[in-house]
């Protein structure tokens, strides 16, 4: 077996070298030397078929069409930001990368302006959703091409909710509190992350704050506004919600905890991406059948969701920026990207309007709330203009810990004062 692999890879190397050589000669004659290969950095998807589709279908197709080999370099979950930091700081490594959250703002100066191709791709795809623009337009320039949103919504047990008298998922936070109180008494508590994970904590706590009218900073991007009656009401609600519907362990949860708890039937409701339903349908079909998904509840000031965008950016150190842009245009063409979206069902909700009613949304109709949520999704820090300070606030868990400390017993006044002091220090330089 080893020998076969070895000889195959030797043959491949010879083939690639010969092709590349021929290509180089041809390009030389035309006066433009296209690169032999380019690399795209991605975080391992929890859906193996998604990464495999790029490696086995998209990359070979592009190589066949252009002679340029695309290397799909994956990094383990949770380490992409560290890797991008290294690449951006040293100015060497892959030409293109996946970005999350507000990273186009964080790595702004090391990313190529892709406004031209963003417009081209947008035109071809029926226009961009507004939230896509919030995620990647830095100082008027597109710094990445939006790919998909990994929405964070309510995941719940339809059977247990029905037993407690809720045929539909509650529409407001107060109704959800009532459902949770009954369900906890029936032995089916809720489990919402209040610890230091990557995303499942921010995923519901920012929307909760916004739905009560609270915010970290005013739209001027400078004035810290966390110390408000709205924040106090959201904090009081959160404490009550925690005490009446959950258990202490959620205060120490990280991201895998709620998936584990839901799939082992310890909790009846949580806030997560589509991954719970996806895994349940695959590995725990009985739980899959009774798992529902719904948009976040409404608060006094509306309904909100966290924006968790995946986008593709080009580093400024790329030797041939045009070749990288050409690749992204090719990748985002419906012929290519359509298939890539579909292997992940609707886990990566497209940002282009042409997919608003695409078949991928009808593979699993229970995923439709993720599509609806895009219109009310924002990055942490909203409604202030997004910038670097939000990354610091998220990394220091200012909002998450404000709520978590209140749940653990501190007074509302005290936890807001802590958050206020931290935010004032973070936004001092803004």
């Amino acid at each position, binding site marked *: 077996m080893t020998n076969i692999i070895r000889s195959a890879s030797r043959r491949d190397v010879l083939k690639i070298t010969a092709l590349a050589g021929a290509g180089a000669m041809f390009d030389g004659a035309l006066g433009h030397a296209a690169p032999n290969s380019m690399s795209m950095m991605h975080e391992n998807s929890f859906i193996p078929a998604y990464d495999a589709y790029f490696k086995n279908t998209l990359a070979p197709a592009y190589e066949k069409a252009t002679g340029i080999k695309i290397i799909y370099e994956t990094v383990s979950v949770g380490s992409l930001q560290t890797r991008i930091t290294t690449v951006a700081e040293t100015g060497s490594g892959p030409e293109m990368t996946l970005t999350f959250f507000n990273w186009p703002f964080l790595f702004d100066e090391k990313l190529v302006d892709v406004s031209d191709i963003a417009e081209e791709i947008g035109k071809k795809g029926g226009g961009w959703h507004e939230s896509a623009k919030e995620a990647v337009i830095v100082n008027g320039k597109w710094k990445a091409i939006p790919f998909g949103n990994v929405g964070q919504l309510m995941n719940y047990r339809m059977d247990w909710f029905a037993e407690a008298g809720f045929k539909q998922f509650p529409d407001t936070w107060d109704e959800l509190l009532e459902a949770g109180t009954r369900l906890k008494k029936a032995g089916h508590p809720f489990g919402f992350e209040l610890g*230091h994970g990557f995303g499942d904590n921010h995923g519901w706590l920012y929307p909760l704050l916004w739905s009560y009218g609270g915010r970290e900073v005013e739209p001027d991007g400078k004035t810290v506004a966390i110390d408000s009656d709205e924040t106090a009401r959201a904090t009081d609600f959160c404490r009550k919600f925690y005490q009446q519907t959950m258990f202490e362990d959620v205060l120490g*949860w990280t991201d895998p905890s709620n998936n584990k*708890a839901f799939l082992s039937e310890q909790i009846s409701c949580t806030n997560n991406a589509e991954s719970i339903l996806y895994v349940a349908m695959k590995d725990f079909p009985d739980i899959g059948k009774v798992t529902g998904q719904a948009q976040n509840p409404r608060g006094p000031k509306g309904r909100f969701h966290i924006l968790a965008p995946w986008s593709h950016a080009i580093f400024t150190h790329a030797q041939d920026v045009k070749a990288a842009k050409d690749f992204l245009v090719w990748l985002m063409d419906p012929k290519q990207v359509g298939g890539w979206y579909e292997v992940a069902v609707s886990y990566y909700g497209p940002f282009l309007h042409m997919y608003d009613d695409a078949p991928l949304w009808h593979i699993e109709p229970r995923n439709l709330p993720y599509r609806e949520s895009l219109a009310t999704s924002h990055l942490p820090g909203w409604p202030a203009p997004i910038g670097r300070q939000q990354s610091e*606030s998220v*990394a220091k868990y200012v909002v998450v810990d404000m709520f978590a400390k209140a749940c653990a017993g501190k007074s509302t006044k005290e936890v807001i004062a802590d958050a206020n002091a931290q935010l004032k220090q973070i936004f001092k330089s803004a």
Partner: protein
Amino acid sequence: MSVSAHSQSIASPAIRLRPAPSLRRWTEREAVFSWLMVTPPVLFLCALVGYPFFYGIWLSLEDRPVARAGQFVGLANFTADWHDPVFWQVAQNTFVYTFAATILKMVGGLALALVMNQDFRFKNLTRAVMLLPFIVPTVLSTISWMWILDPAFSPINWFLIHLNIANPGPSWLGNAKLAMGSLIVVNTWRGLPFYAITLLAGLQTISPELYEAATIDGASALARFRYVTLPLLKPVIFIVTMFSVIFTFADFQLVYVLTRGGPANATHLFATYAFDVAMGGGQLGMGASIALAMLPPLALIIIALAVYMRPARS
């Protein structure tokens, strides 16, 4: 006079017969040879430890957002740390974590070493098995601890509930105090074999004759331990404690896998907080200042240890 002239005449041809002082002889001189041996590791250390260290100091004096040029700000980052309540919580956590885990490892490791120093069947096998927590990659063993500390799957909670001691069982990582306690236990579990095996090596260098002599003098087991074992083991205890303090103080993996500093910063240590601020928050300068803040207290602990545990000069 004549003697000296004679001796000179003998000495001179001898020198002439030998080749001129060669490179070989020069390199064999102790002063040269020692430097030749020391230079490669020193260069190695300068490149891999010295450069990052001084770069870290430089970074800590800059306002240096990731992917952007830095701006010299003097001690502004340290001033900001001084006013950051989380920084002080992190400092307190790190001291509690290091102090408690080191004491537990020292006492437990010494006890384990004393037991392992006895003769019993399967002694070698037991010694090998004892090393397992130290050998298994920390991230892997920590994932096992994640399950052990999950109230729903924890065997500890299972016992507590079935023996009617607690129901529901404690939340090992959700409760701020228990979370720190759990991390200390996991750190102790991982670090115990290092103490035990090193102290065991130290114990085996103690001559049995000393124990015999003490026994003849009527010393009890406790007295033999107090007046023979402990004083002779002191240098080893000092070295192993110093290593342990350094590694525990700068621990990262355990916290990163188990709690990532939660709940509400109750388990954040210097290393994890510095990482979050530098990498997650993109504030390299501030991150470097938090990491560097470890240096003075760590140096003080080491100096204190060196003074207190210095081998007695007789």
